[in-house]
């Protein structure tokens, strides 16, 4: 549940989460129905106002979104009444929020998490909107915006990308080349270790970063289709293919930074900044830790190397954020117009001007103001055959948070005993996915 920070990092997830956890527990103790009573505005339908439930509580996105809404009001005369909640709170309450009286439009994530609420009939399909905005998006984005019933439920706005981040100057200084195959990657790790560096920075204290490492190794080893089946609870975790992925991971683990389970991703990023570590497999928002301009310009990334030639590097992990329409919007016409605007290149550009750590979801957005890193991320995403989200966005969040996060922490700490671990995951998965 706390993997909320995937798409966009929190400044201090720990502190907030605690208070939230405590408050949430108290609220639950006080009776679940109470929860659904709060949130949402009780105002009667006003054709000139669209209400929006926003999780963009951090300063940068909050300001960026506010500019988009202002531009929309100017264009259409419809006011956007924004109800901003803290990012983590929003996520923890989304369940009761959507069942109560939610705002017309709300911020959410693409992938399984979107499909989950769509399947529960807590969102309204927006196929009409997509007829107009469809031309603005690449096919992979279109697929991400559809529910299991094939209807559109989601308007994407921004994407981050997962890859192996490194510092150009370090690679230059030691004469390293970017590895494109598994063997080259392992050889590079060995060389870095010899050169007195930590080959791969790693911090898994928040338990979700290891999910990203598994994603990369699994879809490179077994391909996109198998990865999707595994995430959907269809494929078995005791399948030999999964075992092979873990074997690869175990081969690479000795080159990871020691004591990952006790380190936050922010601390791990510091070792890359200080050049003590050579590489860091992470999301592009790692760039936000590079507060020094010169360091940021030195940052680059490459797609995770090929493991199985049958799949090459065709899959890219690109968690996408965007908007959905709630189950019974008070001002549906206004909300549809608003969503159409959010899907326009214009809205994307306003957003990206203010938040350069992400890239546009639209293929029509003007990329001329992009930094080199953004351009590369954009090119990698556009060239990808398949886009994945992130394990906890592609699979049931209750499964990933209560089963996978502790399981992978256990593996990272002690890679022996994989078979027992996988059997345990499979056993727990069956009950969770059976519970509907």
């Amino acid at each position, binding site marked *: *549940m*706390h993997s909320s920070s995937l798409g966009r990092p929190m400044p201090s997830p*720990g*502190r907030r*989460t*605690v*208070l939230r*956890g*405590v408050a*949430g*527990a108290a609220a*639950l*103790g*006080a*009776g*679940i129905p109470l929860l659904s009573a709060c949130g949402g505005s009780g105002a009667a339908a006003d054709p000139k106002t669209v209400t929006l439930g926003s999780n963009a509580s951090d300063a940068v996105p909050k300001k960026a979104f506010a500019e988009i809404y202002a531009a929309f009001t100017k264009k259409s005369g419809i006011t956007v009444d924004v109800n901003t909640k803290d990012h983590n709170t929003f*996520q*923890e309450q*989304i*369940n*009761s929020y959507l*069942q109560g009286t939610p705002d017309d439009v709300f911020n959410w994530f693409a992938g399984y*998490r979107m499909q*989950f609420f769509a399947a*529960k009939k*807590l969102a309204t399909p927006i196929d009409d909107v997509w007829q107009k905005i469809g031309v603005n998006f690449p096919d992979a984005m279109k697929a991400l915006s559809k529910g299991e019933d094939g209807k559109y439920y989601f308007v994407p706005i921004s994407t981050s990308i997962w890859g192996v981040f490194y510092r150009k100057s370090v690679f230059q200084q030691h004469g390293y080349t970017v590895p494109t195959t598994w063997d080259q990657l392992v050889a590079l790790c060995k060389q870095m270790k010899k050169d007195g560096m*930590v080959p791969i920075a790693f911090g*898994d*204290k*928040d*338990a979700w970063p290891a999910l990203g490492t598994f994603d990369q190794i699994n879809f490179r080893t077994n391909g996109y289709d198998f990865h999707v089946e595994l995430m959907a609870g269809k494929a078995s975790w005791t399948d030999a293919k999964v075992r092979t992925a873990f074997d690869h991971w175990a081969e690479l683990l000795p080159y990871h*930074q*020691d*004591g*990952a*389970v*006790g*380190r936050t991703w922010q*601390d791990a990023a*510091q*070792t890359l900044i200080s050049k003590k570590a050579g590489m860091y497999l992470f999301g592009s928002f790692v760039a936000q830790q590079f507060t020094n301009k010169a360091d940021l310009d030195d940052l680059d990334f490459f797609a995770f190397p090929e493991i199985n030639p049958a799949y090459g590097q065709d899959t890219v992990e690109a968690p996408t954020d965007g908007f959905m329409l709630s189950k019974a919007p008070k001002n549906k016409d206004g909300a549809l117009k608003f969503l159409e605007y959010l899907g326009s290149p214009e809205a994307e550009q306003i957003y990206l001007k203010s938040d350069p750590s992400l890239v546009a979801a639209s293929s029509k957005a003007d990329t001329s103001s992009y930094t080199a890193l953004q351009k590369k991320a954009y090119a990698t995403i556009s060239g990808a055959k398949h886009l994945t989200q992130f394990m906890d966005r592609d699979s*049931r*969040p*209750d499964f990933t*948070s*209560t089963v996978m996060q*502790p*399981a992978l*922490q*256990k593996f990272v*700490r002690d890679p022996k005993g994989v078979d027992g671990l996988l059997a*345990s995951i499979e*056993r*727990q998965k069956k*009950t*969770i996915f059976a*519970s*509907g």
Partner: protein
Amino acid sequence: MSSETITKTPEAAAVPPPGTASPKKRAVLGHRRLLTRRDRITLGLMAGVPTILHVALVWLTALASIALAFTTWDGIGFGSIKWVGLDNFRELFTSNPQFWPAVEHNVVWFVVLILIPTPFGLFLAVQLDKQIRFSRVYQTAFFLPVVVSMAVIGFVWQLVYNPDTGLINSLIGANEPGHYIDWIGDPDLNLWAILIAASWRHAGYMMILYLAGLKGVDPSLREASALDGANEWQTFKNVVFPTLRPTNTVVLVVTIIEALRAFDLVFVFNKGAQGTELLSILVTNNIIGESSRIGYGSAIAVVLLVISLVVIIPYLIATFRKERSA
């Protein structure tokens, strides 16, 4: 919570519902007339409203979570509640790799608190009770951690334990590859690291309780034992400590409660990762979130409730028995 019911219920029972007392009865109980109709309504409201709130917010919710423990529910619509009987418990006891460690850690938590900071708190209290110089200063210093919220203690101790930049590893140079000590991530270390932080606070708490107990020891007892030629240790062992019996009972109960409700410190420290699992953390992880396993989380909560009852019921029986015989 339960003490509230005990104080409230008799009061509610003592007030007859307005309008039910017949005039004849009123004549018999002459003094009852002192309470006008308004008084009785006021009293009824004062006792009734809290009772209703208490029943609705404490008892009904507790019973609801016991009922939910036998279902699966994702929290979306009441239609998705599905009865599964004992499945949640079966899964908990057999296939949840975090459950038994969590039970074990709750027990370890109690044993450590009762064996280390509690005697230490008693020791501090005895020393401070001797009216030594600066006694107030020491008292404040040891009590300070108790005033600070557990969550804040968690943040402060993380600065000490952080494996890369923390105080300990920086001092002893254990943040280098090769001889790396992972205080937060290593399951053989992290529980003990947290317990030190918990003990740091608990000792001050115990000290204050014992200090209050010691103030109640009749000075003439000490005098008498001094006249009998007992040394300090003998006086403590044979005279002072036995008189602290009521305090010891309170200390025991407080420590058990602390061990069962342990949560905030661990949650801040590493969210109950490898080696620091606790029942309360498992409950939270399963219930709070966007697609929660409310049934399963409730089952864990029920286990916690049963453990609490096993501890509390004998205590209550013993206390009531004592009161009756007194």
